[in-house]
């Protein structure tokens, strides 16, 4: 029983971390087909935002509350700049965007190294989030509960924005059919910029949250990126629902593999499962219907 609950919790927890990292990607990848390899560095920027805020504010609790929106703004602003300077020019070359943003990621990583130093820096966990809570016989760290709550909150916020705000409706229209949306008078450029802002902002939020459990160093973002991409691929293009299911499934899968074999083999196992899965559903879990071929 303990083991099962522990497993379940670990799966959910790993899944929520993956989800936080992948949510923004899913938006930008889904809408524009843009593979943003610098997304990991936006997460890292969020981590360092948390660090800087904490240096200024001092109190760990207050600084976390400030850092979350600050991280969103920092990530979002970086996304806007990236979109305006580079991605906008490359919309018709999504594969090239992948390499260009990889270059951006390299530069951001090195910049972090030069500004903050190569060693990891410490972001203190607020007193209220230290220690664990006993749930059904297993100790659940509060930081992980916090991250799960944040993931749920982020997904809910994104879903609400997409569903109920005019901006969200425009985004969905562009995802559904870019050309048609344009003929209906929606400026897809403005929508793209907006999406990129939100998607990158979510990376920043993820970064702030991840300081609670992981290290803050120039390479932090990189370690989440590949897994996040796999979530998006498995989840299907542009589908938040798909990303959620895929993240939790991958998290659980990883946890199970890890318990019954080694953590290294778990990574390989997850990859194999995804390739097999794509045999069954080449376009991911949930796909949008697209009418035109070309």
């Amino acid at each position, binding site marked *: 029983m303990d083991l099962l609950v522990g497993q379940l919790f670990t799966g959910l927890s790993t899944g929520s971390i993956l989800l936080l990292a992948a949510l923004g990607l899913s938006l930008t990848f889904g809408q524009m087909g843009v593979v943003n390899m610098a997304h990991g560095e936006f997460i890292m920027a969020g981590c360092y935002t948390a660090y800087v805020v904490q240096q200024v504010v001092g109190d760990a609790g207050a600084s976390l509350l400030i850092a979350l929106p600050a991280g969103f703004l920092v990530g979002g602003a970086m996304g806007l700049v990236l979109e305006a300077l580079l991605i906008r020019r490359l919309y018709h070359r999504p594969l090239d965007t992948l390499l260009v943003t990889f270059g951006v990621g390299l530069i951001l990583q090195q910049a972090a190294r030069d500004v903050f130093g190569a060693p990891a820096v410490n972001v203190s966990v607020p007193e209220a989030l230290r220690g664990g809570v006993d749930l059904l016989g297993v100790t659940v760290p509060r930081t992980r509960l916090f991250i799960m709550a944040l993931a749920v909150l982020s997904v809910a916020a994104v879903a609400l924005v997409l569903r109920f705000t005019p901006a969200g409706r425009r985004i969905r*229209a562009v995802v559904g059919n870019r050309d*048609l949306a344009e*003929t*209906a008078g929606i400026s897809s450029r403005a929508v793209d910029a907006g999406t990129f802002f939100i998607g990158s902002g979510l990376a920043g939020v993820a970064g702030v949250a991840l300081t609670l459990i992981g290290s803050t160093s120039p390479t932090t973002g990189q370690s989440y990126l590949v897994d996040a991409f796999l979530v998006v691929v498995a989840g299907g293009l542009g589908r938040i629902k798909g990303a959620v299911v895929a993240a939790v499934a991958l998290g659980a899968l990883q946890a199970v593999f890890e318990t019954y074999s080694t953590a290294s083999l778990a990574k390989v196992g997850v990859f194999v499962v995804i390739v097999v899965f794509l045999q069954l559903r080449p376009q991911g879990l949930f796909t949008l*219907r697209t*009418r*035109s*071929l*070309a």
Partner: protein
Amino acid sequence: MSAVLTCKNIEVSFDGFKAVDGVDLELARGEVHFLIGPNGAGKTTLVDAVTGLAPYAGSVVKDGEELRGKKVHHIARKGIGRTFQTAAVFEHLTVAQNLDIAAGAGRSALSLLRRRRRLPAVVVDTMDRIGLRDAADTPAGTLAHGQKQWLEIGMLLVGDADVLLLDEPIAGMGHDERDTTGRLLHDIAADRAVAVVEHDMDFMRAFADRVTVLHAGAVLASGSVDEVAADPRVQEVYLGTAKEAADAARA
């Protein structure tokens, strides 16, 4: 004239929405057969289904062979060719290369690995036929819009397709080009079945041998141009078109 291609009770649905709902269609050799209907009527989806792009229920039979469930390239090899709304030619290859590829679906692996020594006669003839002989070594991407459409039709001709499904072949063409295209269609329909998805009513009236009107995924009317034009339901649908198009754009 006998039907080359027979579609029976075709149904295509996406996420519960029936884009094509029980369509019967026969294409016969020697006819230029127009498929018309308002946006969202299911014309392109029907073509997608026949060519293996969209899964469907029902039956498509060509020369006595059921095509449902076959892969796209197998269906193509059965002699069914199609074009797309935006001309799909290989922009970075020359006209001659485009046609050579289209002519060569049956080539052996070894011959593929060789360099092309001379153009097959059918490619040269077809270039004459579609008026692109002088543009043989021009990259297809630099052709004028209409020329691309012709090239695409030419690619089906060299490939020995005897059922041609053309999706808006005159979109963006000038008046003279339309006439040329129309004559070309009749010319190639002599020994083939040609279906044309089109919005342009003048063009349809000038060149259609037979017309099928689709609306909301079903066949509304079918027959000669005059028969169809006289059908009150067709008139009603076409008066409503402007409103529907606006709705679709807002969705």
